[in-house]
């Protein structure tokens, strides 16, 4: 028998009956069709499935959908404001922070939490924050630059405001 869950995903209320064993990652992908959250491993190492749960970066394959009952989830699809890219998304494009794009949503969501906690990270701090996310294409070089770009941009905007 399923369990009824109520949650907010990208600002929209959702209610579904789900199998208790269903992982949040699969709920997002298969029930809500939000396929921007990717699944790259079965051991919670790769970080392709990172989403924000009440603002915290969480590997959505480590969490059951029923545990998300009553919580607020942001996925990569919900990060841009209307049609305006989030500064981190913009950074990834400007600095060539992605190649195949598969790890990208998880990288961006992880970076979102990093910059929320530490708006002006050093390169070492960025690299440490990405420790739970694998990328096989970029060698991380341009991902670091993408996050630095976003950090600079947010600083400028804050200063400007």
């Amino acid at each position: 028998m399923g369990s009824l869950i109520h949650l907010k995903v990208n600002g929209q209320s959702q209610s579904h009956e789900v199998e208790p064993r269903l992982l949040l990652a699969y709920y997002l992908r298969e029930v809500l069709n939000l396929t921007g959250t990717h699944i790259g491993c079965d051991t919670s190492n790769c970080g392709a499935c990172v989403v924000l749960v009440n603002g915290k970066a969480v590997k959505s394959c480590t969490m059951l959908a029923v545990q998300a009952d009553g919580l607020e989830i942001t996925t990569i699809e919900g990060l841009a404001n209307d049609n305006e890219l989030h500064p981190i998304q913009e950074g990834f494009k400007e600095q060539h922070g992605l190649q195949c794009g598969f790890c990208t949503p998880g990288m961006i969501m992880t970076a979102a939490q990093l910059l929320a906690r530490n708006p002006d990270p050093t390169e070492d701090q960025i690299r440490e924050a990405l420790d739970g996310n694998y990328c096989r294409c970029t060698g991380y070089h341009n991902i670091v630059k993408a996050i630095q770009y976003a950090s600079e941009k947010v600083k400028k905007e804050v200063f400007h405001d």
Partner: protein
Amino acid sequence: MTNIIGKSVKRVEDKRFITGKGRYTDDIVLPGMLYAQIIRSHYAHAKILNIDTSEAEVMEGVIAIFTGKDIAEAGINGVPCGWQVDFKNGDTMKEPPHPLLVADKTRYMGDSVAVVIAESKALAKDAAEMVKIDYEPLEAVVHAEEAVEEGAPLVHEDVPNNISFDWELGDREKTNQAMAQADHITTLEFVNQRLIPNAIEPRSAIGDYDSTNDKYTLYTSSQNPHLIRLLMCAFVLGIPEHKVRVVSPDVGGGFGSKIFHYTEEALMTWCSRQIGKPVKWTAERSESFMTDCHGRDHVTKAQMGFDKEGNIVGLRVKTFANLGAYLSTFGPCVPTYLHGTLLQGLYTTPAIHVDVTGVFTHTTPVDAYRGAGRPEATYLLERLIDKAALEMDVDPAALRFKNFIPPFDGVNQPGYQTQVALQYDSGNYEPVLRRAMDMVGYQELRQEQAQGRENGKLLGIGISTYIEACGIAPSAVVGALGARAGLYESAQVRVQPTGKVSVYVGSHSHGQGHETTFAQIVADKFGIAMEDVEIIHGDSESVAFGMGTYGSRSLAVGGSAIMKGIEKVIEKGAKIAAHKLEASKDDLQFEDGKWTVKGTDKSISFGDVALTAYVPHNYPEGLEPGMDFASFYDPANFTYPFGAHIAVVEVDTETGKVDLKKFVACDDVGNVINPMIVDGQIHGGLVQGIGQALFEGAIYDESGQLINGSYMDYTMPRADDLPSFETDRTVTPCPHNPLGVKGAGEAGTIGATPAVVNAVIDALAPFGIKDLEMPVTPEKVWKAIHNNP
């Protein structure tokens, strides 16, 4: 838009990826789709005594279960090998079948035994656990050198000593003579360890049979959709090619591992035909570890001979190449024609002989992984020359400079004929190493190293120079070398009536940025905006044909095919323009998107000419309407990029940990269309090369269990293991393709590995350590330092 070739244009494909709108195979959901769980052998070598599906069959949501017996009874062939390498004595390569599901025996951990198809992924998995299989485990052999010994367990009963082929290249006698007269011989015995490619997107395949039209569609995470269609139709399932559509949508990295035709692709297609509904299989990461083809796995003894002055006089190589349990699509080609042929390197070595034995073992099939053969060749050469420098007490850079082939541009000077079959197109090797040494501050570092040693600080500087063969390659040549396919590329340049351009390319992009680079070429040559060009790839229904994306060939071969199409459009456009302008074709020039009568202001735009081609009211007599050209480009030669990499490491004597402090790379990939993308390719390649040097390696136990088959156990490089890189380039254009490009996809991986290992050995020189086996883990370094092997 003219003059955008050579500019770092931001990628047009990025928007969908950064907003979560990419569409990978597993994202696709078709109406009525079912899900497959493949039951895989957990024994490396076992007889299948019995399979009992009775309990699973009656479970909720289970639609069908197929075993190897069903496949055998349906008369389905195994997946074929695409490259034939025969024995030295002329005997044909041993090529046992690789069935979609095995019926009698399993030959590696992960071999497919049965498939369960159910209404959901979870139900298929539940049911798979209820299928009871009785195995009789058998003794396994996992190392190539052991597999060829008398009495070793046989992977295939009809393949004596597990040898698929033996092969040689070069002049054995001349090399032996040269070595006999050498003043100094450096010997290196090493394992180029087995790597697991680990694209972050697990492989996925959806078979979709449409009974109404008797048509099949296969969605697959492949680098090579067109060839997969040909192989699957003609050699595996025996279904007509025109009834089959293969789609590779967005693909999440490949690095070689998604070139090959895998059993699951044909299996899903066949299952869908049996059931009449779409069937999807997506690998779990543990399946990726077990079943994506692995790379490298060479056991090599190599000797390099020198005269008194330090000139290389000969090179002798013996390699055992582990092919795994079955021959994968390009398996036999990698240790032979992509390895043996690269052993000239950048050096004037006058005598070379290489001998390779291809061996079956009870392990995952081995095939091309980023660099494919060329990293193995480069590692061999660059470790040898560094070890020789150490033994002869000369600077490793100086020894390289002494032996470099002098510059040749392939136009004013002929290409360089190697001792191992290839003819290099163009090369100028000294400047890349000089530049890399400047970038890293080589002389200062040597001083710092000497001072550090007095204080117990272990700084190491490692050089590697490399050459690679890319743009694979002329069909006639590869055919003569055993390829069972041509290696050209196709492109269709379709100018729409409004002057917008759709380009259908046979190359497939899975991260390389084709949608940007190719569009840059078209926009530049036609003088139109990038937004007016669309690149379409990865769908056999819209693209004529393609030979796949690998071997850094997309731009050199695929880009050249586009250039042929562009030339045809401009040629036809000139005829239309001449008619409209009432001028002679010879009096026109095409520039900035318009044809102009030379010396006048009379002109007609690209868009107007396109419209005229489709609305041919006032039109040259006898000229066909339309503006749509298909081209196939078959190159005249491989391309030969080269470069120099320098790694700087510091080794912690207490822990043995290697800290990669700095890494500089100066590569020459010929002309560059998009420097940003090329740099990105180099960065990514470097990390895969560094990964081999310091972190990665598949480990099998004696029974054939892959004991580090997960991300918990297989050490992938992470962001905080690495520094940022410094890259630069020189430009030596390729003389034989229209863009002058050489290819950049594998350079980083090829150069990086020996640079890092050389740096570690250089750091450990005070301890008298001359070699360490990869990956150079803290444990190995610590043991070596503390003399505790």
